[in-house]
């Protein structure tokens, strides 16, 4: 049995802070298999960075054990450091006076590459992340997005088995964030077995990238699963938005059908006086019921103008688990910090 990429057991982390100690992680258990793209999703202050710091050997846990590919974070630090790497977002990091090439090459030396191999690896990665034009530019002259690409290239220098990404797109504009996500996905896909642990507080990012997600709040993992599994948790029924040219007999016609949980006209879709179409929300026990609904509508002579499944979002999952939204959680965290 090969070791798990990440095996966290009963990790607890308490920071000693001014008024009272802060429990950043509270008995967290987590297993990530090699090859997974795993996400930690949670509001600011949830404990995501703390977990990454423990796994990347920057910080010791207060209790519990954590292993990366079987190596213990407290005892096998050097070994872990050789097989993993880390990239954090939301900060301008870099030795401004060095060129992009120089800075990256320096890290190849820290990772034990021979000098010439180091330069070759640097040039390959510079090309891969699209910084060829900036390669002999000083780091201080790079834009935020370019710096983060360089930072990603640094994170790939040692061809890590596992890459820890701590909010890598934080503070980037939309297009820079997208291009960084593409680079990350491309890197991961290129070789099977490459593993990523990503933290984010952008739902869409987690949804788009991750095979599995752990939803974290106040130092605890509240739920783990694939994005679809998580969404199914909050919504066992299927919800459709249906638009018809007309419906004889009103929604009651549909509610009578077996498997239809409810059907209700959507409010405010089109002004009642000039109404030309009927829009309704249809809740079914499962997707399979849809066929009967369509058949029934055909028999009544209604024409289907539009049919769209409404997907629950990870936000819905979070609200269901925590009882409050993400935005409120962030505001709360900001209030505590200030």
């Amino acid at each position, binding site marked *: 049995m*090969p070791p798990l990429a990440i095996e966290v057991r009963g990790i607890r982390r308490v920071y000693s802070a001014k008024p009272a100690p802060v429990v950043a992680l509270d008995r*967290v258990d987590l297993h990530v298999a090699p*090859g997974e793209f795993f996400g930690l999703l949670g509001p600011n202050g949830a404990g995501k960075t703390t977990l990454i710091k423990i796994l990347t050997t920057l910080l010791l846990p207060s209790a519990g054990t954590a292993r990366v590919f079987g190596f213990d974070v407290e005892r096998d630090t050097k070994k872990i450091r*050789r097989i993993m790497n880390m990239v954090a977002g939301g900060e301008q990091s870099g*030795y401004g*006076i060095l060129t992009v090439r120089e800075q990256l090459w320096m890290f190849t030396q820290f990772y034990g590459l021979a000098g010439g191999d180091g330069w070759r690896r640097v040039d390959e990665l510079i090309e891969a992340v699209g910084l060829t034009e900036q390669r002999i530019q000083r780091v201080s002259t790079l834009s935020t997005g370019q710096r983060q690409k360089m930072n990603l290239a640094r994170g790939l220098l040692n061809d890590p088995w596992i890459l820890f990404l701590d909010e890598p797109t934080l503070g980037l504009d939309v297009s820079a964030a997208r291009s960084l996500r593409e680079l990350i996905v491309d890197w991961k896909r290129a070789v099977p077995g490459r593993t990523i642990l990503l933290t984010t507080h952008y739902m869409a990012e987690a949804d788009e990238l991750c095979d599995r997600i752990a939803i974290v709040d106040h130092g605890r993992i*509240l739920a783990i699963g694939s994005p679809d599994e998580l969404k199914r948790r909050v919504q066992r029924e299927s919800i459709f938005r249906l638009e018809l040219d007309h419906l004889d007999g009103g929604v009651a016609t549909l509610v009578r059908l077996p498997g239809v949980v409810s059907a209700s006209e959507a409010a405010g879709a089109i002004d009642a006086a000039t109404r030309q179409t009927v829009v309704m929300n249809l809740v079914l026990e499962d997707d399979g019921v849809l066929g009967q609904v369509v058949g029934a509508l055909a028999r009544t002579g209604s024409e289907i103008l539009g049919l769209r499944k409404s997907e629950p979002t990870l936000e819905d999952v979070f609200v269901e688990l925590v009882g409050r939204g993400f935005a409120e959680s962030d505001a709360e965290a900001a209030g505590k910090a200030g």
Partner: protein
Amino acid sequence: MAVSATSAPVPAPARFDFAKAEGNGIRDFLRTFAVAVRLGWQLEANWTDPLLFFIYSVAKPVSSALILVVMLEVIGGPSGRAFRPFVVVGSALWSFVVSGIAGLAFSILEDRERFRMLKYVYVSPSDFLTVLVGRGVARVGVGLAGAAITVAVGVVVLGVPFDLGSVNWPLFVTVFLLGLWSIVAVGLLMAGVVIQTRQESWSYPEAFAGALFLVAGAVFPLAVLPALVQVIGLLTPLSWWIAGIREALFPGGPGSIGGAGSVFAGAFGHAQPGPLEIVLALMATGAIATLGAVAVFRVSDRRAKQAGLYDRTTGS
């Protein structure tokens, strides 16, 4: 309620060759050291800004030497002139001490708070201590340029009698290298301290270096200090280093360690230490400083990992 996940049973592909987790011993060490010296050189030397380099590494020591020489002239008159070599060497070595001791500590603060790179260096497999020592050696190298220029100015402008032929070269080389080692050790000790402090503490290392310099006999002989302070001075490798350099460059000139009524003279029964005594004392105090520095650094490292200080920035 904490939820534990069942992992998707993806078998680890054959690409996981665990040899990757093993290091390369001495070769890794040399690579890390070399690149750290190179980085230190590029970051610290201000080569890109010759004016800054000139101000910090040349103008400061030269002007402080000049001030001291003028003071000597006013106070001591012509008889003070014998002390000029003493003053010039002391001032020249100052830039060394500052760049070595304070410089190493600054590397930590700069990497952490300005460049934000400390955590990335730290989570690489390179030995962090080696990286720091490399950075320190580069700083000392920069200091060397300033020191050499100051001595040259002393000889040319102030007419300090300097005779290449009479220099005790074996003593000079021995003391110089041991001193360099000791400075880096004391710098490491300082680095261990500033890992724990915040950026507002920029001034601590320089203040510490300054205090050391005063008790080390750089600008005046130890004999003028209270006995307790003299003892501290005698336990500092810097005192022996400065004394050794003076003795090597200007053999028989005024010394800083002993003299009438000094703690040294009282304890050892003769006025000034000889070259061998200086070398032995430098080795002993340097070894103590090294052991102390490594111990402090290790404790500090452990504490920093416990408290999460390697990526902290002022105000966080």
